[in-house]
């Protein structure tokens, strides 16, 4: 009998798994189900992981970045959501976790996790961005990749109870204007939240992209304040105290305040303003040849929906409106895409988001003109990637 086709072809061609050969993984059974029961990415994606900052002297008060340059779509898988902790990730037994709600309320209450999960539930897809995202980019282009420059950014479907529902259960007193939110981590992280936000769209969540919150995202309970700077969205949430005044915690005085050129500092700058970034092609990518590419990126606004994204390939001289992936949700990452033909030579790629308030993402110089170079947080400027004539892509200022 002659050789079977697959072996004959394998013998006739050196290039292993490419056509006309039948690849080796077709010729034998693969891995069984539940390999493992909770799955993980292919080993060929081992490079797609969060990366550390090198700016912090400890690794428990530190941050790590989401690998945006390798991602597609608008959901951040839970394993890649960026981290920012001030006292490490606690290992909390949910049966021994409580939420205390007290202060200027009719009835102070303690909830256990099972009780919190029984309240009416809502889910919403919302972005999460550290207000320190992009902070290395004020003076010169520093990050090599979009993970370095914009990786303190993620977007998940969060599920939990509206904070307003819990507040009504306790009965908020008339003069109450602020809420202190406190975490159960070693930093006992605290921020003051305006009552208006608490009664608007604030959530107390226990689930993230369908499953329980991840430990580094506040398991078993965290605050979600859609569109607010990440630090306010207290993780490992254990306590909410209602008050008539802000608490002036270290994270809203020493940190997360924005120093202006005159020496004054802005305080309670909560909202993450409209921002966008091209994720493909972006720093570290290489275009293999001239021809068709789709320019792709993400846009978001803490004030509501992104209504438009423009893209420039000449450093901001001319712009074309990109296509947005729908449904566009408020305060959520929104994917934009624009077809492009790279003709070789250098190109300067930029994107510019516009949100439903009409706010237009500014240039870096426009921000610096107002804020100087020492405000640290809230750099939401237009990012430029230069494609050089060899196809390499790098971070530049124009």
């Amino acid at each position, binding site marked *: 009998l002659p050789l079977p086709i697959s072996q004959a072809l394998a013998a006739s061609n050196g290039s292993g798994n490419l056509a006309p050969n039948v690849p080796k993984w077709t010729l034998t059974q693969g891995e069984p189900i539940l390999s493992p029961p909770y799955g993980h990415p292919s080993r060929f994606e081992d490079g797609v992981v969060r990366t550390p900052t090198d700016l912090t002297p400890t690794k428990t008060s530190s941050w790590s970045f989401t690998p945006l340059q390798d991602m597609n779509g608008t959901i951040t898988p839970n394993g890649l959501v960026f981290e920012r902790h001030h006292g490490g990730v606690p290992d909390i037994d949910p049966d021994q976790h409580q939420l*205390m709600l007290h202060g200027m309320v009719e009835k*102070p209450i303690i909830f256990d996790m099972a009780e919190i999960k029984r309240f009416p539930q809502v889910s919403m897809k919302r972005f999460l961005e550290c207000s320190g995202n992009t902070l290395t980019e004020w003076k010169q282009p520093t990050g090599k990749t979009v993970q370095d420059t914009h990786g303190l950014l993620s977007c998940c479907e969060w599920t939990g109870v509206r904070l307003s529902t819990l507040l009504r259960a306790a009965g908020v007193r008339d003069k109450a204007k602020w809420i202190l939110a*406190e975490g159960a981590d*070693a930093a*006992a992280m605290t921020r003051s939240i305006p009552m208006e936000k608490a009664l608007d769209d604030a959530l107390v969540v226990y689930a993230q992209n369908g499953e329980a919150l991840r430990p580094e995202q506040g398991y078993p309970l965290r605050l979600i304040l859609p569109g607010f700077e990440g630090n306010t969205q207290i993780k490992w949430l254990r306590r909410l105290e209602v008050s008539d005044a802000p608490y*002036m915690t*270290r994270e809203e005085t020493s940190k997360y305040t924005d120093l202006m050129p005159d020496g004054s*500092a802005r305080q309670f700058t909560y909202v993450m303003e409209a921002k966008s970034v091209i994720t493909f092609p972006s720093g570290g990518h290489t275009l293999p040849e001239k021809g068709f590419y789709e320019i792709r990126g993400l846009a978001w606004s803490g004030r509501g929906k992104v209504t438009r994204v423009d893209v420039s390939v000449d450093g*901001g001289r001319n712009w074309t409106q990109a296509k947005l992936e729908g449904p566009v949700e408020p305060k959520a990452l929104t994917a934009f895409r624009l077809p492009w033909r790279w003709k070789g030579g250098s190109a300067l790629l930029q994107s510019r988001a516009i949100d439903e308030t009409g706010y237009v993402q*500014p240039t870096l110089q426009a921000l610096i003109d107002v804020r100087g170079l020492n405000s640290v947080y809230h750099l939401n400027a237009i990012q430029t990637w230069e494609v050089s004539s060899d196809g390499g892509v790098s971070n530049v200022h124009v």
Partner: protein
Amino acid sequence: QDEDYGLGREATDKEIAGWNIDVPPSGEGLPDGSGSVPEGKEVYQAQCQSCHGADGKSGQMDRLVGGKGTLASDSPVKTVGSYWPYATTLYDYVHRAMPFHSPQSLSPDQTYAVTAYVLHLNGIVDEGTTLDANSLPKIKMPNRDGFVRPDPRPDVDAEACMSDCKSGK
């Protein structure tokens, strides 16, 4: 909408007392006890200076001292002394988060004392100072009025020019 879900139970005063550790500018919640600058120096040397330096300036971790007059410069130095608007925040933060590896391990007396010492290193209180629930909230920090609220943003008014725009900046 204001349905009584009957979930959760009333928190007792004792339970609240155990967790209600914050110290806002009013001083509400400051415990009994007190601490002096010299006592604070002892605490600091034993528990803080390995990370923050003997002078509060030269440690591996956050600088706690100095920087006055630099905020409007090109190289601002933000510390407890130059930047923090309230002394209560220092008590609050040191008790809740310091020393880094043993948060909430300092007693009220120790916390008052080391707070006094850090303020003294910054020239805000003199060596003879003893702090307690009464005196701490009254300290006027140098940068008390340095903060702007509410948030003045949007602070740039960019236009969405489409063609032949002024590139870049």
